[in-house]
């Protein structure tokens, strides 16, 4: 399965992509909002992990665009944020995000979330 990780924090993307590859995913990484949008269109991932505070536009703008486009609206989006805004979670869910997770990411929680969204068990994912 394919996952797009969109986050400008390179330490975070290294960790996420490494762990997700270990779980059998094919991972594409984007470091800003524009790259994220383009990668989503081009790779048609099974899920997107999206930081909502990125340069080059914002993650929120990408989320809106993803959910508005017929090419990407069905792709589950897990939003990551270290936001101090208590309304961030409800705001992104209102915009169509499937789940909101706080940073730093709890990997077990992320695995559980992806398992539910993709209908797989991350103990034995099915890599393509």
């Amino acid at each position, binding site marked *: 399965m394919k996952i797009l990780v969109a986050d*400008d*924090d*390179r*330490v*975070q993307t*290294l*960790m996420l992509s*490494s*762990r997700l590859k*270990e779980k059998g995913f094919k991972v594409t990484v984007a470091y800003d909002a524009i790259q994220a949008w383009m990668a989503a269109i081009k790779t048609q991932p099974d899920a997107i992990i999206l930081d909502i*505070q990125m340069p080059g536009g914002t993650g929120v703008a990408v989320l809106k665009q993803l959910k508005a486009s017929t090419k990407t609206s069905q792709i589950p989006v897990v939003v990551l944020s*270290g*936001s*101090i805004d208590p309304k961030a979670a409800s705001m992104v869910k209102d915009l169509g995000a499937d789940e909101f997770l706080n*940073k*730093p*990411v*709890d*990997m077990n929680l992320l695995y559980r979330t992806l398992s539910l969204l993709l209908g797989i068990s991350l103990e034995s994912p099915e890599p393509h």
Partner: protein
Amino acid sequence: MLRNTEPHNPQAVFLAERQKRPGDPAQAGTPQKEKLSEKQKRPIFIQEESKEAPVNHGEEAVSWDEALARVEGDRELLAEMAALFLDSGPGLLAAVREAIDRQDASGLEHAAHDLKSSVGNFGARKAQEAALKLEKMGRGGDLTHAEEAYRSLERSMRQLWPVLEAMQRSEQAS
């Protein structure tokens, strides 16, 4: 309102400090690839670092249990993340410094947020809390105490730095 009174370049300070250290990870490249599953979970570099660093900050600067749990015990990955942060960290701190110098509240909020996210990957609580404080100041638009908060952040980063370098050296040596 407090303002810094002398030129300050965090990136230059950190780079200068790194040049003094043996086994600079920036020169040594990425850690050696190897299987790490049988290694002890508790890193030995904390004790090693205390012999050569001026102060033993290891336990305070980083929560290894938290950092290793986040990468599922993969010390090699943690060392790679440290290498990345050793490169990007000074720039992130410099962005915070510059935002304060410009009295740019929004810029400070974002710069401090970025730094907070990065150090959070290592369970670096002190640095994380110091960055969070600055992020909140930026968000609130009140930078009155930003200088003081920045000094706290800088201290935390100075503690974090050698610990991450020591971890890298340890991984490269093993």
